């Protein structure tokens, strides 16, 4: 390799490093915003949870009569929602979701069940298409900054499919946000609610708000608790989907930040190696030239 070849390579690696470093910084800024959104959702999600519990207690035995709360007798069709990103370059972020989701889907299929895939994010949608899996619902273009309306669209499609008995079980796969460096694949069952952990008391996150219990008897309901639940439960599903979207977004930026930091570091190492290589080549060329001069001088003597 000649000196100029090495120079060209160093320049191109430097350019790549600039890009990866910029992407890392963009991801870091977006990560901070995504984290804030998770924390601003918490009070709302906590209040919805408390209300559902309160209304469920008041409704008592009427719960089974609601189609959304009814467990289907035959669990023949399973809906799997894969939450991925629109863009790659985020390490194993997308592939680990696809792997986990498709593995679970294959398991269901082996047990003679039908699997319906739903996916968010272009990566998930196109990978499913590539593998020949049909998607019943594909939602793309918002994973950078999901809005509540996106979650509502997805949740309503899932709830409608469940109530209309097109599917008998709904599962969601997403990257749970643990820290900027750590994302874990989470698998949650959204419906039927009896199998979801949604109605159980203390969730992992304690929202710390004071719970005004103890005076249920005095509470006025407008309309009946059962009627309230009819809509509160789908809202619960929406909130769960929204939380998954937000966590996935935060995880995506975290994963990209880490991936890009590694890439920048690698680029730095490559540049060091190439610089050494270039010095060696240059020295070799100089030595070569001296030898030629000396050899030429000797020939004249």
């Amino acid at each position, binding site marked *: 390799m000649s000196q100029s070849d090495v120079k060209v390579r160093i320049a191109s690696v430097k350019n790549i490093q600039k890009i990866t470093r910029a992407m890392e910084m963009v991801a870091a800024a977006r990560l901070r915003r995504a984290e804030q959104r998770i924390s601003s959702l918490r009070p*709302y999600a906590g209040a919805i949870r408390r*209300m559902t519990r309160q209304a469920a207690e008041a409704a008592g035995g009427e719960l089974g009569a609601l*189609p959304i709360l009814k467990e289907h007798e035959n669990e023949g069709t399973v809906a799997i929602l894969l939450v991925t990103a629109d863009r790659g370059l985020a390490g194993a972020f997308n592939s680990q979701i696809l792997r986990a989701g498709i593995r679970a889907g294959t398991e269901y299929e082996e047990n003679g069940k039908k699997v319906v895939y739903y996916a968010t994010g272009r990566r998930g949608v196109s990978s499913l298409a590539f593998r020949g899996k049909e998607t019943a619902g594909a939602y793309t273009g918002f994973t950078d900054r999901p809005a*509540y309306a996106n979650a509502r669209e997805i949740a*309503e499609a899932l709830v*409608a499919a469940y109530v209309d008995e097109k599917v008998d079980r709904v599962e969601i796969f997403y990257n749970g946000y643990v820290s900027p460096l750590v994302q874990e694949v989470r698998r949650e069952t959204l419906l039927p609610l009896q199998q979801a952990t949604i109605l159980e008391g203390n969730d992992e996150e304690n929202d710390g708000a004071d719970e005004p219990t103890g005076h249920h008897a005095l*509470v*006025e309901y*407008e309309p009946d608790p059962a009627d309230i639940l009819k809509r509160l439960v789908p809202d619960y599903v929406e909130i769960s989907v*929204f939380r998954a979207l937000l966590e996935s977004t935060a995880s995506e930026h975290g994963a990209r930040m880490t991936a890009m930091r590694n890439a920048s570091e690698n680029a730095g190492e490559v540049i060091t190696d190439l610089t050494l290589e270039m010095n060696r080549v240059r020295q070799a060329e100089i030595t070569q030239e001296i030898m030629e001069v000396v050899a030429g001088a000797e020939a004249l003597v």
Partner: protein
Amino acid sequence: MARSTFTAEVLTPEGEVFNGEVEMVSTRTEVGSLGILGNHQPLLGMLAPTALRLYQSETDIVTFAQGEGYVQVADNHVLVLVEDAIPSGDLDVADLRDKVSRAESEIAEAEEGSEAQAKARRDKRRWETFIAVAEGPAPTAS
């Protein structure tokens, strides 16, 4: 005469949009219009789309277009949980009309009596109410 004040909080999934002392909260549940004054009895209500008005004083009124949601009154504190709460000045009528016509075509396409159709009907009602909030001071009950 000054009314007694109480705290009101409006939360959406995107975060808090209002938190402060008010004299009255005016909204609408699925059953009918509702005005909440200080020392209201505990209540859990399901809200319908309407104009949500928070009276900080007789003349100082904060108005939002509210989507479906819930209201909880406990210990002289009003908690309004809604999916959408758009300040009345920020509504985009053209965009809302677009959404109404989209909902109408969804109603026509969906299977009669299905959940998908019920959802489209709710969408239509919500966006129509928002238009009413944007256009006039007094939205009519749908």
